[in-house]
């Protein structure tokens, strides 16, 4: 399992209800269900991946988060997880509102557009950055709303969203983000992971 999922699963306590939004092939769900006895649900737009999850026995429904989240009752999950998808929505602000409504706590991870390789790419090459974490060209990327770790923290401040935990992935290592190391982490981390409510 990738480092990001390891970090997310560590945040999630055992025996809790978890909704994985954009659950892909269900790797994280399976881990949470088997190892942590979590009661998991998934939402995934891609038919092939949904069918894969159902074949594994995972409760995943096919659908688009921008349309489907509305059906889940208020605070019906202990955790809602959104891994590296926020930037791909037409309206990330509204999706985030839904996530916060459904979950007692929400875990959001974002690819960091402030990562130094991204910055250098644009600065020196003068073209839209293509990196390991952001492998697509500008014309075929699903990412509509890229942001940096700092952007996301500012956004939470502005919206009065409480950040309970912030972490980042730097060279395959997970570490905490604090007020003091924020500027540094915003340059050297590929990924930000936030526990918010």
């Amino acid at each position, binding site marked *: 399992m990738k480092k990001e999922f390891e970090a997310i699963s560590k945040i999630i306590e055992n025996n809790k209800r978890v909704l994985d939004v954009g659950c892909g092939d269900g790797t994280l769900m399976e881990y949470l269900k088997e190892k942590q006895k979590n009661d998991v649900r998934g939402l995934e737009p891609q038919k092939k991946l949904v069918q894969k999850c159902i074949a*594994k026995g995972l409760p995943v429904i096919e659908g688009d988060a921008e349309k489907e989240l509305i059906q889940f009752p208020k605070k019906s999950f202990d955790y809602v997880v959104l891994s590296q998808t926020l930037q791909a929505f037409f309206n990330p602000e509204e999706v985030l509102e839904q996530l916060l409504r459904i979950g007692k706590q929400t875990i959001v991870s974002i690819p960091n557009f402030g990562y130094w390789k991204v910055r250098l790419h644009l600065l020196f090459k003068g073209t839209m950055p293509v990196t390991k974490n952001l492998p697509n060209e500008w014309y075929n990327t699903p990412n509509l709303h890229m942001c940096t770790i700092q952007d996301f923290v500012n956004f939470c401040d502005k919206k009065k969203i409480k950040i309970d935990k912030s972490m980042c992935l730097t060279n395959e290592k997970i570490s905490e983000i604090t007020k003091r190391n924020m500027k540094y982490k915003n340059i050297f981390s590929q990924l930000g992971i936030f526990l918010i409510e």
Partner: protein
Amino acid sequence: MPGLAGLFFCLIMNSELKNIKRLIVNQSLELDCGKIIKGFPLAYETYGTLNKNKDNAILAFHALTGDQFCTNINPITKREGWWTFAVGPGKAIDTNKYFVICANVLGGCMGSYGPKEINPETNKLFGTTFPVITIRDIVRAQKYLLDSLGIEKLLSVIGGSMGGMQVLQFAALYPELSHSTIPIACSASHSAQNIALNELGRQAIMADPNWKKENSSPDKGLAVARMAAHITYLSKKGLEEKFGRKLQDKGSLKFSFDADFQIESYLRYQGATFVDRFDANSYLYITRAMDYFDLEKQYKGNLSHAFKDNKSKFCIISFSSDWLYPTIENKEIVIALNACGANVRFAEINSDKGHDSFLLNVPEFLKTIGEFINSTYNEVKK
């Protein structure tokens, strides 16, 4: 439930209905219409072997014109069973592993209590004196079959179309009785469009002068009903691909009302063969049961209440080209299940084959249900 076993006895009828297993239910069942029935027959078939723990049983519900013979050759019609693509050794619902039970619905015409049976009180055929039955009646009757087989918990209840409605009704009535619940291409409340289409079929039957005449059957009316219904089971794209404007056996139009087009000839054939195997009054009664189905209303306008505290694993499946029970109606079930926190999964399968997709060779569909049932079984055995 050994105590209950004495209440049942199984008969293998030796009349025109030979090869049909029938359970005579000796308890009384109060139908939704208020009538109480007792000592009524329920025809059924089983495939595969019930294991020692009795935990490998799957109850399959048939659709409007199906019967208990879901796979192999139907001994009465001599044609393949209606779900031969899905049920059988090594198939999605693998009869090498699972014990598949399928019963003919109340109101049906393959040996169960229905309008084609003799009314013991009058010694005449029931015909239209048969009581109006509902999906709920149909499902409650089948519970007796499970009791008689000594099955306390099913691995799955599964069915498409009207079979799916029975699955939903089963889940609502018996929340503890199945590990998994698989309604396919169906709806929790029959839509106005579908009631309209059923009414069209019924009117075709009732307009036939042979309807209600002794010793005759309204074959023409029933054939028209079947033709109209058959169109609704297909999709526009499927029809285009299979038939287009192709002519039947001739190079040019005949300037007559014979079946010039292949699609006409196909529909006529569908109608003609249907009357050989189906009873017109059964068609009236079963379509009525579908029209009356409104699970939301049964639970006081809140469909979620039908599934409250239900721990079964739900798997809802719809098909992209199904306009009779479109994805949006299937999704309403998903939404109701999510609203009460049920264990639900949902997939829309891409297919051009319309509503009929669930009966046909649609590999993605068969793979999905097969692997889902296997994963459920693995968890049950854990």
